[in-house]
């Protein structure tokens, strides 16, 4: 069991996190934009999350917290 929490208002839409998820579950939320004007990163299928924290580690803005 694991989950990631995105502080969406800090996200700058750089998409680096989407390139490192081993489960491919990190995507950009195209249906919404944050106050900065970016599509924030998010996770569909949280039940597939293994809590590896790769996304958190490559995020340049400390947007992601990981719980396991």
């Amino acid at each position: 069991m694991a989950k990631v929490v995105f502080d969406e208002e800090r996200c700058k839409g750089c998409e680096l996190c989407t390139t490192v998820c081993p489960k491919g579950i990190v995507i950009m939320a195209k249906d919404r934009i944050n106050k900065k004007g970016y599509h924030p990163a998010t996770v569909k299928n949280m039940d597939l999350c293994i809590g590896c924290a790769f996304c958190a580690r490559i995020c340049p803005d400390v947007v992601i917290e990981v719980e396991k």
Partner: protein
Amino acid sequence: MAKVFERPKALTDKPFHYCPGCTHGIVHRLVAEAIDELGVRDRTIGVAPVGCAVFAYEYFNCDMHEAAHGRAPAVATGIKRVLPDRVVFTYQGDGDLASIGTAEIVHAANRGEKITTIFINNAIYGMTGGQMAPTSLLGQVTTTSPYGRQADQAGYPIRMCEMLATLEGTAYVERVSVHDIKHINQAKKAIKKAFEVQLSGKGFALVEVLSTCPTNWGMTPVEALEWLKQNMIPYYPLGVLKEVE
């Protein structure tokens, strides 16, 4: 469930002003994690550069001292000589360290100043809008090398690590990258090691972090990581260049 990854204490809450995908953010966090893990936050003083990281004093949650462009190693020397039992680090870009500050970094290293330097090499001047850096690659197009850097006009990209590793006072020099998770993990290890070297009193420690500047390279953050891997690593080989036992 317990938190296995969260914001380090050695970072303030302030959102970074860096461009989307700029690797400054990753490296700031790695430095903060190292400071947290070594438990030295309350006796650390960081010296901020001039460059995109000029606001570093807003992000590192410890005592911070501004420096003029290139002078951080001299400022750090002043602090460390006054307070030898504190942890003093500089965080500098390629203009700051390899251009205007070349004398200061060479001599701080030569004197074996017990400080830690984090050197961000993204082969360009970010803050001022994309000029050529001493570390810009041959053929690289920048605002001051609009036809691509030519060796006969502007000389060759400079490998600072190799130069500094030749000095007796240097105790630890490693070049790392942050273009993927494996390399980010190695970068973290190197940065922590560089602080440990200071704590052990062995001498000067420097980590050169190959970094991206998506905005001034004119590419997306994801493309920039790939450009770094394809173009910078062949010229700036990764690895430990010096390690004193």
